[in-house]
């Protein structure tokens, strides 16, 4: 078994769509809970990651330009990550297909965690 990070990305508009009303927010939440639970039940959830605040800053370029919030380029909003365990990339990709964000404009970036001696 190897470790993979799922990096969740979406757009601000899609996030608004998913959370737009309490009913929709609850449906999104329930879809997530169901998906994560399934990963967990099958022994694939290694780490639930860390929830991220929606505020923050982006520092860019040689001039170290600081912009408020991660929304500066709202076409690509990083929502957070989890760590899963899978046999190989194929399985990790397959498992990611249940992510509720894929119902909207979101994406899941699946990245193997580097293994072997690191130094």
């Amino acid at each position, binding site marked *: 078994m190897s470790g993979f990070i799922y990096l969740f990305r979406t757009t601000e508009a899609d*996030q608004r769509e998913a*959370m*737009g*009303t*309490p*009913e*929709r*927010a*609850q449906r*999104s*939440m*329930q879809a*997530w*809970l169901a998906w*994560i*639970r399934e990963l*967990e039940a099958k022994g694939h*959830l290694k780490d*639930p*990651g860390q*929830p*991220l605040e*929606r505020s923050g800053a982006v520092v860019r370029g040689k001039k170290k330009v600081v912009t408020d919030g991660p929304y500066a380029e709202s076409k690509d909003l990083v*929502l*957070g990550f*989890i760590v899963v365990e899978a046999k190989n990339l194929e399985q990790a990709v397959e498992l990611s297909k249940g992510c509720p964000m894929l119902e909207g404009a979101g994406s899941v970036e699946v990245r193997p965690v580097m293994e072997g001696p690191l130094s």
Partner: protein
Amino acid sequence: MATLLELNEHFFRRESGRMVAALTRIFGVHNLSLAEDVVQDAFCRAMEAWKARGVPENPSAWLMAAAKNRALDIVRRERTARTFAPELGRLLETEWTLAPLIDEAFTANTIRDEQLRMMFSCCHPRLPEEAQLALILNILCGFGASEIASALLTGHAAIEKRISRGKKVLAGARTLFDMRDAEFESRLSTVRRALYLLFSEGYHGASAKAAVRVELCEEAMRLTALLLEHPPAATPTTYALAALMWLHAARLPARLDSEGELSALVDQDRTHWDARRMEEGLALFERSASGEEVTPYHLEAAIAVTHASARSLEETDWRAIVSLYDRLMALAPSPVVALNRAIAIGERDGAERGLEALHAIADSERLARYPFHPAALGELELRRGHREAARKHFRVALGLARNDTERRFLEKRLRSSADV
């Protein structure tokens, strides 16, 4: 890791109404959109925190704490630039009164009181009834504009307009309705009317999706129960309103049969009636009986009681029902009441008399788009053996059907009038 706690159905929607009430207490009703932003923010935080770790043990307290912290930040940051609740005035200015005030705003009692005041404010006499309903559904029940539009069969843009106009009226008043106001009595009656309409909309619902929208009925009942918790509002008339809701709601499980199809009272399996709700409804009806006043709510509740206490259709006391409809016609005449009265006469005196009563309805053009008028004609024609006439009426009814459930129901009636 992710716990197996489930969120109750509509949990976010309900919590939204409660949080908006608490936040309005702090921010003032003119800052309603700020309160809504804070609620939205609490939901987004919950999403991030819970989605991979599971729902906390007390999700409601979690959300309230998130909203409280956010409110505290906002007041601290903006108290010099913005005016918050005029009722709290200077108390928000100093740190040592601010935190306790915010805690107090989020207690169960304050939330209940503020929801009541909000309900009375939403029923402002300057707002047309449909705007009152849209506002109640939006602010107190947490429905979005498009959800309200599909529940009330209205366009999205129209609902948005109603909500934003309504919120302007609310904001203009600066504070929520004062429950000790001299206008309390008259406002209470407007509130009851709005809740009655909300319930009927759900029960008789002309929705494209489903004929019975249980959610609207449940919201109307929840808010009526809230009204009964406030002693000055818990009058015999309010009890009558509650009784009629509970007794009708008890029949909801039988109104749609096992295939989700609309089922006429005649065909309803009475063992599917909700016995607990029925009992509660009867208890509420008893409490409505004190005092002199007999309102249309009393009469409608009494009709529901009469239906409820019959073990079968044959045992129904149609004499009592007709006479209750007579009194209802005298008190609050409407074509729909006249239609139901005619149906009851048909049951009491036979199809011929029922048809006479149906044809005698004075303003039947107001019923022209109501499918159950021709359907009732069809039913009675069928009963006296005039199949051709019955089919004609059922076809008219079918043309007026407002949703698939009604359509399938009427198609079934049409087919059964063709069978020999």
